[in-house]
């Protein structure tokens, strides 16, 4: 999947497609979606009429050559604007297509007896014939034909086709890692998968539709900006319409070509032509970051986020906590303790549980084989009890958080050993996580788990703080541990001992304070919070419920993605704002080019307004419209790439952008128009 992350802005095939599209988009029904450019389009048609009129013998409107040249320039202006939109669409589509290619029609082993208990019979069908609710079988070496949820089995899967990450991942039924994506490949074992979407309705399909424009809705900011641009357009329309009686008063005849040129130069064609391209490019940038946005609005909202809820594990710390030490309580023998720990962790499929067994094994203790049967009962971890364990050979081994075990011990009327309590505190204050192990409600000791904070993460939080975004770490750890890690990583706040509803409550609390909140999640129990959050990013590996609830899906399952998403959103808004400023600031120079040109014949004193020293009125008007046209393609790369965001605070950022795009917007056209005038001198 090389082209997923290819950063080349343009390539030949895209340009070819975009050129074709920019002609097709000349349909009035398409043009009218963009009011600013639509008026240019009308002006072009009028000018074509003027050319015909001149050919029919009219002689008050200047030469045919001059009028026809202006007609061509205006047509090119419209085409440039169409091209900007088309190239953005083409890029987005190419990006999405390359993802879609991974799920070309593949044979699927469809279960033919889905209602039977063991679902063993299957037949080969084409993946395109699979419908929601169908169940298919995937064995080692098979390409998964369709998005779905594993209902049975466990398998290692190569997701590099989607994520570009070559290390295989484990997906299994139940829990939060049950989702598989079409186009990925099963490397080992076999799974049965239930199809979760009908063909054409996957997130990717939705995203492609958004990019293609069919279902692309304007985002709230885009609507507001369109209103502002439309009102500027009307102001300039008024300028041009009223100029006719004013010119009559001044006894100055003005040609239709001059009126239309003035109008087209003044209205914000630059931003008007690039507006939709900027929006599409924003979604495209999200896609390039391997994030599927379900709407343009979600991307835009991301730029406004005030609070990010980040899971500690995987985002702030590397992977999972690992067991590093066993601390048996005073009178307990280490061997007894470690064996109990291993026993208690046997059924614990969490990485922490496994790391305990690994640590035990490394110390030379064997892993006994146990089966859940009459004599043995596994007690799974639950968010309520906050411990897990096993009942075997008449022993009740429990392993869990300090206060959970403390409760249990107290309930049984026993004492919690002081040395272990002391050890728990030491571990916590060092940022570790203590797991207390008990046998028959008697404390045996404590296991230390340690977190490793990702390198570079605190710099990223610093950057977010400068953007005005507050970071909140969500963790199941106790407050002491959480505080230690929070301080070390540099997050602004943390939720310790978090239960799923705590996330929800925190989001609600922030939202009532007027803040916009984003979170990332994968589990079904995250779904309500994902839906509640203003931006909910579901991991692609997460459950279907989580993916439905969020408004973005991250194909990489990378929790730090939120940070990139915020920047993409900000870039989107900034690109619109700066290009609007640039476009409007350009008008100053255009006035100085065109207004003296219009009146110089009757009011020679206006020559002193011709500060660019343009050679002739005709050349001045031509230079202005040519500049107005070519600035659009010149700015296409900027529109597609986006204006770089710098976390330097609102004030300095505004000053910087005002300086570059405001002042620059005033100066650049003076130079540009003068240059074009000089070049035109070679031909005219």
């Amino acid at each position: 999947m090389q082209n997923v992350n290819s950063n080349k802005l343009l390539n030949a095939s895209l340009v070819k497609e975009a050129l074709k599209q920019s002609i097709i988009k000349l349909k009035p029904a398409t043009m009218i979606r963009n009011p600013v450019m639509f008026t240019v389009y009308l002006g072009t048609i009028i000018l074509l009429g003027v050319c015909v009129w001149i050919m029919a013998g009219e002689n008050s409107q200047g030469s045919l050559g001059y009028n026809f040249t202006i007609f061509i320039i205006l047509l090119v202006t419209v085409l440039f604007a169409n091209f900007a939109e088309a190239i953005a669409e083409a890029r987005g589509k190419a990006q999405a297509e390359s993802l879609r290619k991974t799920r070309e029609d593949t044979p699927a082993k469809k279960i033919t007896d889905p209602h039977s208990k063991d679902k063993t019979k299957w037949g080969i069908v084409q993946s395109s014939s699979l419908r929601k609710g169908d169940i298919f079988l995937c064995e080692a070496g098979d390409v998964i034909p369709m998005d779905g949820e594993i209902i049975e089995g466990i398998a290692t899967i190569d997701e590099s086709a989607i994520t570009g990450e070559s290390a295989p991942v484990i997906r299994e039924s139940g829990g939060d890692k049950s989702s598989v994506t079409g186009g990925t490949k099963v490397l080992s074992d076999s799974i049965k998968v239930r199809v979760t979407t009908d063909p054409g309705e996957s997130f990717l399909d939705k995203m492609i539709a958004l990019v293609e424009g069919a279902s692309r809705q304007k985002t709230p900011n885009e609507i507001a900006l369109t209103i502002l641009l439309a009102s500027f357009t009307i102001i300039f329309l008024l300028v041009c319409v009223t100029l006719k009686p004013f010119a009559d008063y001044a006894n100055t005849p003005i040609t239709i070509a001059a009126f239309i040129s003035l109008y087209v130069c003044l209205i914000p064609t630059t931003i008007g032509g690039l507006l939709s391209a900027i929006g599409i490019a924003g979604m495209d940038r999200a896609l390039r970051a391997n994030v599927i946005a379900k709407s343009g609005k979600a991307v835009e909202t991301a730029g406004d986020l005030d609070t990010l809820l980040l899971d500690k594990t995987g985002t702030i710390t590397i992977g999972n906590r690992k067991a590093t030490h066993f601390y048996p309580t005073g009178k307990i023998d280490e061997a007894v303790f470690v064996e109990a720990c291993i026993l208690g962790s046997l059924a614990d499929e969490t990485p922490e549980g496994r790391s305990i067994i690994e640590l035990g094994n490394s110390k030379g203790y064997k892993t006994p084989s146990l089966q859940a049967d009459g004599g043995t009962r596994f007690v799974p971890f639950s968010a309520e009890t906050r411990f897990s364990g096993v009942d075997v050979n008449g022993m009740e081994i429990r392993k869990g958080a300090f206060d959970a075990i403390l409760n249990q011990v107290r309930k049984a009327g026993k004492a919690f050993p002081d040395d272990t309590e002391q050890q728990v505190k030491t571990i916590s204050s060092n940022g570790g996580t203590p797991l207390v192990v008990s046998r028959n409600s008697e404390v045996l000791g404590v296991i230390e788990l340690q977190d490793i904070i990702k390198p570079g993460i605190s710099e990223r939080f610093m950057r977010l703080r400068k953007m005005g975004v507050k970071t909140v770490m969500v963790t199941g750890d106790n407050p002491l541990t959480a505080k230690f890690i929070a301080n070390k990583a540099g997050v602004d706040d943390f939720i310790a001992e978090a239960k799923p509803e705590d996330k929800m409550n925190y989001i609600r609390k922030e939202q009532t304070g007027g803040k916009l909140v984003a979170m990332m999640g994968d589990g079904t129990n995250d779904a309500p919070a994902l839906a509640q959050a203003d931006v909910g990013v579901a991991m692609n590996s997460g459950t279907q419920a989580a993916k439905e609830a969020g408004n973005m899906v991250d194909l990489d399952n990378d929790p730090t993605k939120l940070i990139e998403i915020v920047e993409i959103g900000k870039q989107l808004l900034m690109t619109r704002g700066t290009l609007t400023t640039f476009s409007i600031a350009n008008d100053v120079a255009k006035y100085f080019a065109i207004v003296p040109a219009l009146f110089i014949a009757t009011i020679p004193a206006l020559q002193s307004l011709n500060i660019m020293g343009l050679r002739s009125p005709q050349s001045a008007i031509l230079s202005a419209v040519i500049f107005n046209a070519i600035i659009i393609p010149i700015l296409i790369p900027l529109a597609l790439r986006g204006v770089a965001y710098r976390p330097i605070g609102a004030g300095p950022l505004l000053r910087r952008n005002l300086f570059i795009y405001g002042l620059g917007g005033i100066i650049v056209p003076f130079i540009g128009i003068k240059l074009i005038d000089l070049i035109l001198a070679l031909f005219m």
Partner: protein
Amino acid sequence: MNTEITGIIASFLITVLLAIPLGRYIAKVYAGEKTFTDFLSPLERFIYKFCHVDPKKGMGWKEFLKAMLTINLLWLIYAFVLLLFQGHLPLNPDKNPDMPADLTFNTAISFLVNCNLQDYSGETGVTYLTQLFVITFLQFVSAATGIACLVAVFNGLKEKTTKNLGNFWVIFTQTMTRILLPLALIMAILLVFNGTPASFDGKDTITTLQGDTVQVSRGPAAGMIAIKHLGTNGGGWFGANSAHPLENPNYFTNMLEITAQVLIPVALLFAMGIYIRRKKFAYVVFGIMTVGMLCLMLPTVISEIRGNPEITRMGVLQATGAMEGKEVRLGPAASGYWSIMTTIISTGSVNSMHDSSMPVSGLMQMLGMMINSFYGGCGVGFLNYLIYIIIAVFIAGLMIGRTPEFMGHKVEAREVKIAALVTLLSAFVIKGFTALAAYYFVHHANADWAVKPANWLNNPGYHGFSEMLYQFTSTNANNGSGFEGLSDNNPFWNITGGLAMILGRFLPIIGPVAIVGLLAGKKYIPESQGTLKVDSYTFGVMTFAVIIIITALSYFPPLVLGPIAEYLNMH
């Protein structure tokens, strides 16, 4: 010359020094805190009781505007009827006639909307009854209406989230009793002691040194001249306005009147800072407005002091500057300063004839009215400025990568739509009507009207164009000053002027009140590092740039054809 400059600086400094304590007082009045005018509260309670007003009842923005518009409509009808039949009513010692219908239309609207464009002359066009009970009455209530609407905006900005912009009737009454009436009383007394008449006698007859007899109009003028300035109204008792020796007898009254007209608009800015608890915001706004004022005032004063180059070319010395159309007792500097203050403040009273100003001055006066928010009229000045702020907030917000916010509320499509409409309106009224006038002047010059379009303009060419452009700029801005030199007392100008005035008044009030009403109803977003700070100088400069760019882009062509062409031809 130095004395003249000192006079200007002193006038401005006195204004600001008086505005600071007045602003503090105004903030207290509306906050309901204790003030020394509390002895008036029984009177106010009586008014509420008499009018069946529940002073504790708050109003949403729609209700507030409904109350404001209803009472304004009532005043319009009242003024219309009285003016139309004034000849038959008492208090008419000079036997002045009824007002013609088209002039009544223009005059009633003109004073209702705080514009005070006068297509009549006070000596002959109105009676003492209508001077007092229509003109002066409307000068009070129109100023109070503007201030009340601004206070509604303050109420919206003050709270984090609220649906209550205050009670229109209460704010209006308090503005009258606590602010306008006491200040007008003080000023009227000062004027009377300097020679402004306050008598109900009719015309006096004076024998001049040459032995001619001259009929001199009088009347109870001092009170009206006081509120004319305090309320940024500008309509004179006499036709010559504050150039008239009885309306503005000496340099002291000149300073008094120029100070009085700037006083309340500036004081309201300081009051805002205290009342909405954002002092820095108020100072930044005041700073930007002052910079804007200076950008217009300095070139004007300089060009007036330098004198007319055409006269210099004739070999005539102009040691006292350009004196055409100016009063010798006031001089070019004080006249130049006044002409800018009166145009940016929307007063529109004049102490010199703007038609005779240098082209640069004419350009600056028109720009002042096109922008109409450097201090601006009573209450409405900041309302106009708010529209520019909303547009600046929107563009600046996008430029820093956030959905735009103003004082903790998101600025979205509806607010932008309203701001855009208001901006559009000015451009539409000014250019649209000027274009209409130009069209009739050129294409129907000899139409069989009361005054033929060909005879409208006293000057040909660029200056004549400026006369038309100025008229609609002034009516749209509710300024009311005239470039003069325009034959405006005829149906075309009376009716188009009336329409321009009423459009230029109410939509720019409704717009900002609605925007703030909508914003105040939204969820409050606390400030963060990424928030655009509207009380920063960076944002102030941004707003200034938006004002300049919008005005320049919108009016560049007509200004080129009027004052700019005149200037370039002269030099």
